[in-house]
């Protein structure tokens, strides 16, 4: 059986950054398994710009950002096996892979980094009545069709869901000559970034209709149109129905971490973020298995993915070299009112970084509010936040001493009113 110090599952930005960081920490025997034929993951189809402002101090497109990391992987001589699908990971880190060259093979890894990314919510989960005619795509599928395969799905388009992919596809479809009638969003606020509303919708006069959803789909074999209605308290308001003829309906209804492998390995999952429970080294409930990037929690900025993944790679290197677990009490970090989830779920008191990062999302729109960390009644940390919105992941760097002062579990919460 082939043996490796570190097996990285997935060659997107997370997997590449983890491998690069582990290599720089002195691990030599690393392998990246990627099911696609190229490295880069989702970035290859994200041809728009807006990547890398933090990491490279310039604004890159997705493929350019991916290529910079792929170059680092190559220059460091890290082996990559593309066209290789990981089928299973056992709790003692035997990884089963499938490739056309070698067929099914078991390998042993002294450490594993999970970096499988996420996938889109499938349309079945949307609960729209009617037939399922041809012409309905998830926004990411349409993005792949247009940007990688060079195929336009249609000419007259309606988009349901205002996540960033939906907004970006509204512009992309328009630039490719289609007409985008509108973007409809069930929630009273957009799921995507404001900057994308400006440069993807406003620039092209595409309306964003909040508190609206598709209630009916017309057409048997081919999509002919959709019926849209305004929504209140989760229910369509009678009398607000409008018919939009279209040949394409794009669904941008969010992403879910791709955790089949994680689950079948028996790793504990945090239902609040649909990703593994991890400590401050990004280690999962199984020793030697680490997680980072979109498989851990959905990120909106690739720069955060790279930073988080580097931490996972360094932790894997430390695990392989040191072996023994870090000393000290485990302090849990529990999300309370206004905070949806956190990464990490816990800290180890004896082995804190100088400035541990806490990444989280809020449950509503907060203006001029604060994030507070408490230990019982005692307040350990407070930071004023001008704006926090659910579609933007928050990244707090907290001083080590703050957390070291905890003598019991910590609670993190927002203070202020939802606006």
């Amino acid at each position: 059986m082939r043996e490796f110090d570190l097996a990285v599952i997935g060659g997107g930005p997370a997997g590449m950054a983890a491998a690069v960081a582990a290599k720089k920490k002195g691990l030599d025997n690393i392998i990246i398994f990627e099911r696609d034929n190229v490295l880069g993951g989702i970035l290859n189809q994200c041809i728009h710009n807006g990547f890398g402002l933090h990491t490279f101090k310039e604004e890159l497109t997705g493929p350019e950002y991916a290529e910079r990391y792929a170059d680092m992987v190559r220059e460091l001589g890290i082996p990559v096996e593309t066209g290789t699908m990981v089928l299973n990971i056992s709790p003692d880190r035997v990884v089963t892979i499938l490739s056309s060259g070698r067929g099914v093979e078991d390998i042993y890894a002294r450490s594993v980094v999970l970096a499988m990314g996420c996938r889109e919510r499938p349309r079945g989960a949307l609960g729209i009545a009617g037939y399922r005619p041809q012409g309905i795509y998830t926004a990411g599928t349409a993005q792949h069709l247009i940007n990688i395969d060079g195929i336009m799905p249609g000419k007259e388009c309606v988009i349901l869901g205002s996540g960033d992919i939906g907004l970006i596809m509204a512009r992309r479809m328009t630039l490719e000559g289609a007409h985008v009638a509108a973007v409809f969003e069930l929630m009273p606020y957009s799921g995507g970034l404001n900057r994308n509303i400006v440069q993807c919708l406003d620039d092209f006069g595409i309306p964003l209709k909040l508190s609206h959803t598709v209630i009916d789909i017309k057409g048997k074999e081919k999509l002919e149109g959709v019926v849209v209605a305004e929504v209140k308290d989760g229910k369509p308001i009678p009398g607000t129905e409008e018919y939009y003829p279209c040949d394409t309906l794009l669904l941008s209804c969010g992403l879910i971490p791709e955790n089949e492998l994680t689950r079948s390995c028996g790793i504990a999952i945090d239902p609040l973020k649909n990703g593994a429970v991890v400590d401050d080294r990004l280690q999962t409930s199984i020793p030697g298995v680490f997680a980072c990037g979109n498989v851990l929690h959905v990120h909106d900025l690739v720069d955060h993915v790279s930073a988080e993944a580097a931490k996972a790679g360094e932790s894997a290197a430390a695990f392989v070299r040191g072996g023994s677990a870090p000393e000290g009490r485990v302090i849990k970090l529990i999300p309370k009112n206004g905070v949806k989830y956190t990464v990490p779920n816990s800290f180890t008191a004896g082995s804190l970084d100088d400035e541990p990062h806490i990444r989280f999302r809020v449950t509503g729109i907060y203006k001029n509010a604060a994030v507070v960390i408490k230990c019982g009644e005692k307040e350990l940390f407070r930071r004023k936040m001008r704006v926090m919105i659910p579609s933007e992941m928050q990244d707090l760097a907290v001083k080590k001493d703050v957390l070291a002062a905890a003598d019991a579990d910590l609670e993190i919460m927002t203070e202020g009113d939802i606006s």
Partner: protein
Amino acid sequence: MTKELICICCPMGCGLTVEMNGSEVVSVTGNTCKRGDDYARQELTAPMRTVTTTVRTADGVSIPVKTKEPVPKDRIFDCVKDIKAANVTLPVRVGDVIAANVAGTGIDAVAARSV
């Protein structure tokens, strides 16, 4: 006159309030950094955007392309048209010029991926 804008220079998306005197920008508030100020002044006089699209090579491969610098917003469609019309053959390196002086903007459109 007051104008409300959203800065698109980074994901923070700061809400900007711009005091105008006719077509002249008097003051910009709400920005977190200098780039927001620059953006507001540019946006209200001559808005600019980076254009990203794809071009098909003779071999039928899709190559991502971007304008090296932002171009005038009202020239976006002209740029896409010019880029689509470019003759591209493999191999392509990231940064290779795909359409020089795209749509007469003085800006080059370059490949965003090596194939």
